[in-house]
C-alpha cells in the first residue's frame, strides 16, 4: 500500500480530518473563547468568535468566589494519590495474572472488572455510613482510597495486557541470572513496561480527575476537588455564560494540557489488549 499518494488525495484527507477534528474540538474552543468575553458578548446574537474585547474579568470573579488553587490541589492529590496507590497494588497483581496464569485467572480478571458495575448511587449510603464510622468523611485519604478502588480494576486490566506482551523468556532469563522476584519486577519488568505503565497512569489520572460522583458526595470542604468546584457553577444567577466558561476552562485545563502533552504515551497504551 506504499504507493505514491497523490497530493490531491492527501489534501482531501487533510481537509476532511481537520474539519471533523475542529468540529469535535469546537465546544472546548468555544468555551475557552467565551471565558474571555463579557456576559453581554457571550450571548450576543449573532455570536461573535474572535473579534471582541478580550477580558480576564471572569477569571477574577471566579477566583474571588472560590479558592481555585485549593480545589486544584485537592484534585491533584486525589487523582495522583489514587493512581499511584492503585499502580502499586496493581503491579504485583498484574504480574501474577500475566506470568503465572492459573485456571481462574481470567475469571478473576473479569470479576474485578465486574465490580465496576456496582451502581454508585446504590451503595452511596453504605459507603457514607462506613466512612462516618471510620471518621474519615471529607478527608483526602478516604477519597484517594475510594477513587483508587473504583479504578483499580481498570488499572489491573491495563497492566495485565501490557505485561502479557512482555516475553516470559526475559523474566525467566532474569531468574536464571539470579534475580529475586523483587529484583525481577523492579529491574526488568517495570522498566520494560514503562510505556504501558505510563499510559495506565495517565488514563487513570484522567478518570480520577473527572470522577464526579464520589468526589462530590464524600467531600465537603477539606478534600473537595474541582468537581465540587464546578458544582457551584452549574446554575448561578443571571447571565452566566462567561463565568461558567471561565470556571469550566479552569476545571478542565490542567487535565487537558496533561493529556495533550502525553497523548503519545496515552494513545500507545490505550488498547486494553484489543490489538493483537
Amino acid at each position: 500500500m506504499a504507493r505514491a499518494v497523490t497530493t490531491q488525495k492527501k489534501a482531501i484527507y487533510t481537509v476532511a480530518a481537520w474539519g471533523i477534528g475542529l468540529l469535535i474540538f469546537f465546544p472546548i474552543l468555544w468555551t475557552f473563547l467565551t471565558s474571555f468575553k463579557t456576559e453581554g458578548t457571550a450571548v450576543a446574537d449573532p455570536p461573535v468568535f474572535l473579534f471582541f474585547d478580550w477580558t480576564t474579568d471572569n477569571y477574577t470573579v471566579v477566583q474571588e468566589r472560590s479558592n481555585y488553587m485549593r480545589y486544584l490541589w485537592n484534585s491533584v492529590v486525589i487523582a495522583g494519590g489514587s493512581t499511584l496507590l492503585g499502580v502499586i497494588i496493581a503491579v504485583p497483581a498484574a504480574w501474577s495474572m500475566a506470568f503465572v496464569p492459573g485456571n481462574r485467572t481470567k475469571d478473576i480478571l473479569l470479576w474485578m472488572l465486574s465490580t465496576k458495575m456496582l451502581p454508585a448511587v446504590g451503595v452511596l449510603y453504605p459507603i457514607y455510613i462506613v466512612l462516618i464510622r471510620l471518621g474519615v468523611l471529607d478527608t483526602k485519604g478516604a477519597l484517594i482510597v475510594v477513587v483508587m478502588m473504583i479504578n483499580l480494576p481498570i488499572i489491573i486490566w491495563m497492566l495485565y495486557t501490557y505485561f502479557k506482551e512482555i516475553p516470559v523468556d526475559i523474566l525467566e532469563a532474569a531468574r536464571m541470572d539470579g534475580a529475586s522476584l523483587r529484583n525481577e519486577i523492579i529491574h526488568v519488568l517495570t522498566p520494560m513496561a514503562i510505556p504501558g505503565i505510563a499510559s495506565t497512569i495517565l488514563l487513570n489520572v484522567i478518570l480520577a480527575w473527572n470522577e464526579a460522583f464520589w468526589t462530590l458526595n464524600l467531600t465537603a470542604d477539606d478534600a473537595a476537588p474541582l468537581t465540587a468546584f464546578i458544582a457551584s457553577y452549574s446554575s448561578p444567577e443571571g447571565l452566566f455564560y462567561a463565568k461558567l466558561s471561565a470556571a469550566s476552562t479552569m476545571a478542565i485545563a490542567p487535565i487537558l494540557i496533561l493529556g495533550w502533552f502525553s497523548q503519545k504515551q496515552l494513545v500507545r497504551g490505550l488498547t486494553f489488549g484489543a490489538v493483537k
Partner: protein
Amino acid sequence: MATQHSRSAARLMMSPAVILLLGWMLVPLIMTLYFSFTDYRPVALPPTVAECCVGFENYVRFFTASAFMDSVWTTLIMVGGILAITVVGGILLAILLDQPMWGQGVVRILVIAPFFVMPTVSALVWKNMFMDPVNGLLTHLWEFFNATPINWLTDVPLFSIIMIVSWQWLPFATLILLTAIQSLDSEQLEAAEMDGAPAIKRFWYIILPHLARAITVVILIQTIFLLSIFAEIFVTTNGAFGTRTLTYLVYQRVLESQNVGLGSAGGILAVILANIVAIFLMRIVGKNLDA
C-alpha cells in the same frame, strides 16, 4: 514459569488487590442487600433507620412501579445509542485518521480532547452554550439557516444526552480503533488487493473483521462506564422527559425521596441487570482474551 515457588509468590502478590476489591464489593453490597429488606427512611416522621424486616416489599414496590420498566428501557436505549454512535463514528474517524495527511498529530489532539473533559463540565457547556433554546449556539445555527430551532433538551431529550455523552466517548473509541487499524498487517490488505477486492470490500471483508476484537473491548469498557452515567442527566434534565435511567431512578429513591430501603432494592436490581449485561459481554471478551 510455573514452579511451585512462583505460584505461591503469585498468590501472595495478587492477594492485596483481590482482598481490597472483595471488601470494596462485599461490604457495600451486603449492607445494601440488608437495607433493601428493611424500612429505612431516615427523614420520615418518625424516622426509620434500617428497621428489619419488611421482606420483599421494597423489591415489589420498586419492580412494579411503571418507572422501573421505563427506566430499564431508557437505560438500554441510552447505552445502546451511545455505543452505536461511538463505535460507528469511531470506525469511520479512525479510518480517516489513518490516511496520509498533513498535521495528523494536531488533528489527533483535537479529536482526543473531549475525553479529558469532566462530565459535569461537558453537560453544562452543552446544555447552556449549545442546546439552550434561546441563546445556544445550535439555536443560532438553525436560525442562520432559517430553520426552526430545536428545543434540544425538551423535544429530543434522550437524543440530546446521547449526543453529549457520545461526544465525550467518541475519542476513546476512535483511539482504540485507530490503534487496531494500524496494527493490521499491511500484507493482508495487499493480498486482498491482489485478489481483486476494491477499497470498500477490503473494508468490509478485511478491516472490519480485524477490528472485531477492538470493537468488543470498546463496547465492554464503555458499557461499564455508561451504565453509571449520572452527571450528564443530573445537569441537563434531572431525569425528566424520559431520560430517567435505572441509575437515576435509584438516585431519586435514595437521595431525593430519602427512601434508602426502596433505593437499595433498586440498587440490587440494578446490580443484577448490570451483571447480566456484563456476563453477556464478558463471555465475548473473555473468549477474545485467549486468542
